[in-house]
């Protein structure tokens, strides 16, 4: 019963957030108007700037921002008990992420669809833009290393997911072939693709693949990490229509199916099943395992996506803003996009606290910090689906494991592609042309180096995960400060941006400092993480000073007239 109540409260808060708070934001703070010509119309080029139906744009936006992070973060964070995680996900989505994603979309739409990097150059200064490049490089590097480890762990802990994970690549290749070479209609291809994927899950469940202790002279962990990097390199080099595009698409469809399955099983479980699912995890975990960091501030950086995430601002201002048909659509696309991700996180929380039979079972999974993670989601969610939908537990677990692996893998190969572009750009800045093969080699070498930096089991990859949260939140603060500067210049209420900005900044800065102290502990010092953390701390102080100065300037400057946006000359060429 507890799960259903929690689900209803959570979904109710999201609904209220969307219906009430986002309405307030759109009317009073952002003052959205359909008279404003969006960049998609003004700069229409059929390539980047294309007016798109708001439901489809929401689908694109949501599937781009929902990777493995809204699963990994909450699944780890419930170690402090379900209540803090639940509160941070719901309140965070409504007042932090919703505002942040919606605001980033609005800021970009009002500035000819410029990205957050370019906006920071305009509103905060050129130094802000340089910092942005450093942060984005670190973020991408962390993503590929950490996700390699997440996938490796899942492939080892759920051998049934091996066949569907690699089989999904085959399905994607065939979908790409059917649509582009054979020109088959999309609807039947989609249906066949999704059915084939689920058939592979059934097959995988019947034939689990366990790698022997020593395979080709490597442990299973080392083997999978190397295979994943080789795969990522190949996927990022292939033409997009061959693998990336059909895979992202099938994954997008899978995401909707997965969400329906998860929430549906909680509902049917409570209404119809003989064993009503109950919450076995404590609201506040007083019996924390040794080595668990303190809840404040670590909870707020462990759950980034699903509460607030800087990465969303990149998507909002990178692609979504250029496709927005009417300005008023930004409320649905931006705010409701954040709500979609909040729902995924809520589903994860329900799975990891309500899917275990007893509190002792739960404790045995959460025996150390970082232990629960995605495996707990797979195990708990599997039990929940067995109870609610009557699917065998092992099959349900395979469904969820495949879902998590596919999300992580999509994020990983997109990350590798983006990192390759960054390497090529760096090459251009220093005056050498780096073609795509050497650039990919650099990416793979740095990624593998980082993953294996703490041992051949790939410990280096996941230990930087807490840093991902801090870096990501730092980016969120940067975006919120741009929104705040814009609001101050327009003499509108800046508090909806300033309050989350202050809270997120203080918490992530605090987390970065406390982690810094941990990295220097004698006996377990970690100089790689220490140096990365120092870079992050320096960057955050830098951002804070720049942002405060920019806000002061904005306050002293004469108020911006309401029609100013219409007159803004594109700063694109200048940048």
């Amino acid at each position, binding site marked *: 019963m507890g799960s259903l109540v929690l689900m209803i409260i959570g979904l109710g808060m999201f609904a209220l957030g969307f219906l009430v708070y986002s309405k307030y934001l759109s009317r009073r703070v952002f003052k959205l108007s359909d008279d404003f010509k969006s960049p998609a119309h003004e700069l229409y080029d059929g390539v980047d700037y*294309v007016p798109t139906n708001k439901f489809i744009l929401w689908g694109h936006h949501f599937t*781009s921002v929902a990777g493995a992070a809204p699963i990994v973060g909450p699944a780890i964070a419930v170690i402090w008990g379900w209540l803090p995680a639940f509160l941070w996900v719901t309140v965070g989505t409504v007042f932090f992420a919703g505002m942040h994603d919606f605001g980033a979309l609005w800021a970009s739409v009002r500035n000819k669809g410029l990205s957050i990097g370019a906006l920071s150059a305009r509103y905060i200064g050129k130094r802000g833009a340089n910092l942005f490049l450093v942060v984005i490089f670190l973020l991408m590097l962390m993503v590929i290393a950490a996700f390699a480890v997440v996938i490796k762990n899942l492939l080892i802990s759920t051998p049934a997911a091996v066949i569907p994970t690699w089989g999904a690549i085959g399905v994607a290749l065939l979908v790409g072939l059917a649509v582009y070479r054979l020109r088959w209609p999309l*609807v039947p291809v989609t249906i066949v693709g999704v059915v084939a994927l689920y058939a592979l899950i059934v097959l995988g469940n019947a034939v689990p693949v366990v790698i022997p202790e020593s395979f080709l002279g490597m442990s299973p962990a080392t083997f999978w990490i190397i295979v994943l990097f080789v795969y990522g390199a190949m996927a990022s080099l292939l033409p997009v229509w061959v693998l990336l595009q059909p895979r992202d698409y099938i994954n997008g469809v899978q995401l909707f199916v997965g969400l329906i399955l998860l929430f549906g099983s909680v509902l049917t479980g409570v209404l119809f099943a003989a064993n009503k699912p109950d919450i076995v995890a404590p609201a506040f975990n007083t019996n924390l395992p040794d080595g668990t960091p303190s809840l404040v501030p670590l909870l707020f950086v462990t759950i980034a996506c699903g509460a607030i995430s800087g990465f969303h601002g990149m998507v909002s201002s990178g692609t979504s803003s250029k496709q927005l048909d009417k300005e008023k659509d930004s409320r649905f696309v931006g705010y409701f996009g954040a709500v979609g991700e909040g729902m995924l996180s809520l589903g994860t929380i329900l799975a990891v606290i309500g899917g275990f039979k007893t509190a002792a079972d739960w404790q045995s999974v959460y025996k150390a910090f970082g232990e629960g993670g995605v495996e707990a989601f797979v195990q708990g969610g599997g039990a929940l689906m067995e109870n609610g939908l009557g699917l065998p537990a092992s099959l349900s677990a395979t469904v969820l494991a495949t879902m998590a692996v596919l999300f992580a893998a999509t994020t990983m190969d997109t990350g590798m592609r983006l990192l390759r572009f960054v390497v090529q750009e760096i090459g251009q800045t220093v005056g050498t042309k780096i073609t795509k093969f050497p650039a990919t080699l650099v990416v793979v070498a740095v990624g593998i180096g980082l993953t294996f930096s703490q041992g051949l089991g790939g410990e280096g990859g996941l230990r930087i995960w807490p840093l991902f949260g801090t870096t990501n939140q730092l980016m969120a603060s940067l975006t919120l400060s741009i929104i705040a500067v814009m609001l101050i210049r327009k003499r509108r209420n800046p508090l909806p941006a300033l309050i989350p900005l202050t809270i997120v900044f203080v918490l992530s800065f605090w987390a970065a400092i406390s982690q810094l102290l941990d990295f220097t502990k004698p006996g377990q010092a970690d100089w790689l993480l220490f140096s990365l953390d120092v870079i992050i701390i320096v960057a955050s102080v830098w951002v804070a000073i720049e942002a405060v100065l920019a806000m002061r300037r904005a306050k002293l400057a004469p108020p911006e007239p309401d029609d100013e946006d219409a007159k803004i000359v594109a700063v694109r060429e200048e940048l």
Partner: protein
Amino acid sequence: MAAARRRRDTMRRRWKAFSKGLHEFYIGPYRQTFLREKRDEDDMFMIAVLGEALGVPDPAAYYTAELMPAVWEDFHDWHRRIGIPRSPLDHIACC
């Protein structure tokens, strides 16, 4: 009868809209990449066709000469894109 036909029409319209939406969901995120790829291919084609005219010895010039009228329309955009502000060819005075 009329009601049934109306219902059928509505269903057909909805199905079409759904199918169109699904198609947009498929191609949307990669639209830019494809168009860029196509542009690069077109640029390659332009160089192959105009090679001889630009002073690059081209054994296939006899055949590609026939294609020249086909590329004239895009010639101006192309030479500006590759960084030549004025037309490099005397016989095509586009700007």
